[in-house]
């Protein structure tokens, strides 16, 4: 009897411990969206946030003057309306009335001026400063020579004027990026803002338990009517890819694939599981993975060699390798990017022509080249497939897998990386973020080249400069497409594929959609358990 009582007590104690250990921090009656993440975002300061988790979480707490709607079109956010001067250099914004920050402080034009100048100031170390370089007086602030930019004015509390040094037809797109988020005047420079941010967004920062979770709570005074519908968002930390999937399957997380792709093995398994049929959401990602060929290095200084490489790669095999979560790339502009033209076509897969071109270029037996690539599992898998394709035409590509920071440094130096795996994701949805950035010769500097194929072509430069000045969007996009046609023909890069965003939601998640810009769009999103 005594023995059985002891066993019963022990079982009870164990059950209590298990219950404590597995208990959920939030109450089930509230509509709280639960997501998973491995490491906490590097920062929650929108002036510095420049990776998917950091942008994804910080964006939930902030607004800019303008933003992107679900079709990637510009719509008002903290600005009620705006006008652009006939010369395209001056933007005059009328701000919403009655908006308050999460701490109750009223929002005004001074906050906008402070926020934009803060991004420019060297002390902020914002990766966003280069996007706002066209603002009058910005270069002096970026260089640390002036505290204020003459082109950012706050004439009245509800009016902001931004004056550019030269017209920039896509300036509003730049302003809609996370770097354009408005923070409260003076408060963002206080130590610890990056961990306890204050914005005007749909959710307010409630707290972070180190290593466990970040909790955001609904902003009850949010200026958009009936938004947000969720009571809060919890980001559960410390979940690696496999654990995140297992927790999702157990119903402890609501959406899978928000801040990182669903792991390849898990995706294959879940997509075959009848339980999840019809619950996958899919959207094209505005990103392009490509093979870069350094036109400043032999043998890739020869256009025939570059064309041979382009014709030697079978992109359909890569898409199969990625379990169909990608589309073959014809050009550098992704299909869902405004300005994309379906008529754009790259070189077809034709290894026989590739061999002929190599022979014409003086390499009848092919050649050997180092192939720099990121050491991430997926990228490496693709690189090995390319390596195999290239070997079929006699090109021996020797893989050099390195960390992403090392790859970034390696390809930005001249004469260093003849062939490399590149990946460009949109900062904002416009061709100006893809083509001039990667292919204009002005992007080649001895110390740092963003144009890492060191492609120098007068016609391409001319077309890109022309597009940069065209106020009509249709004309601008048409010129960009001409530039892309020229680039693809010259083949400094072989566009490989555009990845797809594939997310999986629980049946109780309503109104979830994949936004073309923001990692998580809470508009209309709710939970109905």
């Amino acid at each position, binding site marked *: 009897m005594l023995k059985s009582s002891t066993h019963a007590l022990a079982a009870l104690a164990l059950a209590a*411990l*298990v219950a*404590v*250990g*597995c208990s959920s921090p939030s109450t089930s009656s509230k509509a709280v969206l639960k997501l998973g993440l*491995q*490491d906490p975002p*590097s*920062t929650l300061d929108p002036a*510095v946030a*420049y990776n998917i988790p950091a942008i994804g979480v910080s964006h939930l707490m902030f607004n800019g003057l303008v933003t992107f709607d679900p079709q990637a079109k510009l719509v008002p956010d903290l600005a009620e309306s705006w006008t652009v001067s006939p010369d395209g250099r001056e933007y005059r914004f009328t701000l919403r009335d009655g908006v308050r920050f999460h701490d109750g402080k009223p929002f005004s034009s001074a906050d906008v001026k402070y926020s934009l100048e803060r991004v420019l100031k*060297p*002390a902020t*170390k914002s*990766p966003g*400063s*280069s*996007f706002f*370089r066209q603002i009058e007086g910005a*270069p002096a602030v*970026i*260089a*640390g020579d002036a505290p204020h930019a003459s082109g950012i004015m706050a004439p009245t509390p509800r009016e902001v004027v931004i004056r550019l040094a030269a017209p920039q037809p896509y300036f509003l797109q730049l302003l809609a990026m996370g770097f354009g988020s408005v923070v409260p005047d003076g408060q963002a420079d206080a130590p*610890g803002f*990056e*961990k306890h941010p204050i914005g005007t967004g749909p959710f307010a920062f409630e707290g972070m*338990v*180190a*290593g*466990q979770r970040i909790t955001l709570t609904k902003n009850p005074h949010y200026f958009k009517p009936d938004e947000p519908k969720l009571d809060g968002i919890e980001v*559960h*930390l*410390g*979940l*690696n890819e*496999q*654990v995140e999937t*297992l*927790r999702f*399957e*157990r119903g*402890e997380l609501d959406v899978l694939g928000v801040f990182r792709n669903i792991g390849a093995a898990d995706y294959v398994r879940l997509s075959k599981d009848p339980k999840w049929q019809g619950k996958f959401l899919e959207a094209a990602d505005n990103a392009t993975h490509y093979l870069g060929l350094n036109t400043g290095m032999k043998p890739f200084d020869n256009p025939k060699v570059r064309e041979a490489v382009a014709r030697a790669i079978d992109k359909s095999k890569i898409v199969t390798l990625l379990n169909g979560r990608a589309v073959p790339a014809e050009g550098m502009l992704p299909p869902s990017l405004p300005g994309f033209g379906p008529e754009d076509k790259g070189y077809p897969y034709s290894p026989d022509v590739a061999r002929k071109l190599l022979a014409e270029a003086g390499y009848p037996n092919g050649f050997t080249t180092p192939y720099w690539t990121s050491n991430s599992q997926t990228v490496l898998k693709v690189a090995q497939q390319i390596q195999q394709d290239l070997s079929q035409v006699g090109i021996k590509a020797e893989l050099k897998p*390195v*960390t*992403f*920071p*090392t790859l*970034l*440094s*390696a390809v*930005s130096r001249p004469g260093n990386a003849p062939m490399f795996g590149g990946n*460009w994701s949109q*900062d904002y949805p416009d061709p100006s*973020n893809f083509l001039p*950035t990667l292919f204009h010769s002005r*992007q080649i*500097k001895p*110390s*740092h080249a*963003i144009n890492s194929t060191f492609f120098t072509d007068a016609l391409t430069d001319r077309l890109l400069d022309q597009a940069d000045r065209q106020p009509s969007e249709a004309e601008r996009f048409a010129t960009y497409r001409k530039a892309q046609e020229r680039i693809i023909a010259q083949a400094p890069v072989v566009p490989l594929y555009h990845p797809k965003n594939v997310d999986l939601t629980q049946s109780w998640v309503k109104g979830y959609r994949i936004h073309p810009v923001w990692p998580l769009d809470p508009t209309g999103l709710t939970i109905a358990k």
Partner: protein
Amino acid sequence: MSGIVKRLLGAIAVWLGVATLAFALTYVIPADPAKTLAGAQADAATVENIRRELGLDAPLPVQYARYMGGAVRGDFGTSYVSGSPVMPMILERLPATAALAGGAVGVYVLIGVGLGLWGGLKPRGVGDKLGVVMAAGGVSVPSFWFGLALLYLFAYRYPILPLGGYGSPLHLILPALTLGIGGAAYYIRLLRQSMQDVMRQDFIRTARAKGLPEPQVVTRHALRNASLPIVTLLGVDVAHLLGGAVLTESVFGWPGIGSQAMQAIATMDVPVIMGTVLFAATVIVAVNLIVDLVTRVLDPRVSSL
């Protein structure tokens, strides 16, 4: 006494060497923190501004002097990515890593010492055979696989323990087992052999001949002598625990200094990387010093070396 002073001076020299090596390594890595922080889109001017703000434009000797000056005062600078001071970042994560390492030592003691002792006292018995199997398994199974298998079994398939995460003693069980099992295997083998050797010694026969009860023979005479290599191994194992913690923390999402270091490596957050290396070096050097002192107490013959 002079031996202790020598050890102390040696420890300081090792620490300074590690600090210098950690600094030098950041110049060997062919990645530029300013470029990483600025992002792929940043123009040359932005990269240069960030480089200046980080103090990376200063001559190398100046950077080294700044770094060493801060390091000896326990100031590892501020994170390039978050802007937060590095030392509080490490101290914030330290309790999690300490709990994990403590749990792993618990596994060493429970499994390693327990089975080692059993096998040592009863050669070819059940405990000995179990110990041999566990020792072989513990050494040969990769810890990340073992961790994932444990998670799948005990947290997903049979959900009696939390599925990853951190916060309660229950969360600690699987990570501690994962980190500790490999080390426990060495302890099993070492203590088993050590006990078997000691039990054959003359002084054990003498103790038994004096009529000392067997438990006292084992605890007072055999275990004390057999544990000497175990204490030494524990000192060496601090490095193993800290190194192993990086992988275990990643598998279980354990918010310790290991997972923070992994994140820092991915973003080239050099002050956090160097701060973690130096912090770990300080702990390892200090523990080894303590082990030296304890060994002297356990075996006075060591003092004369």
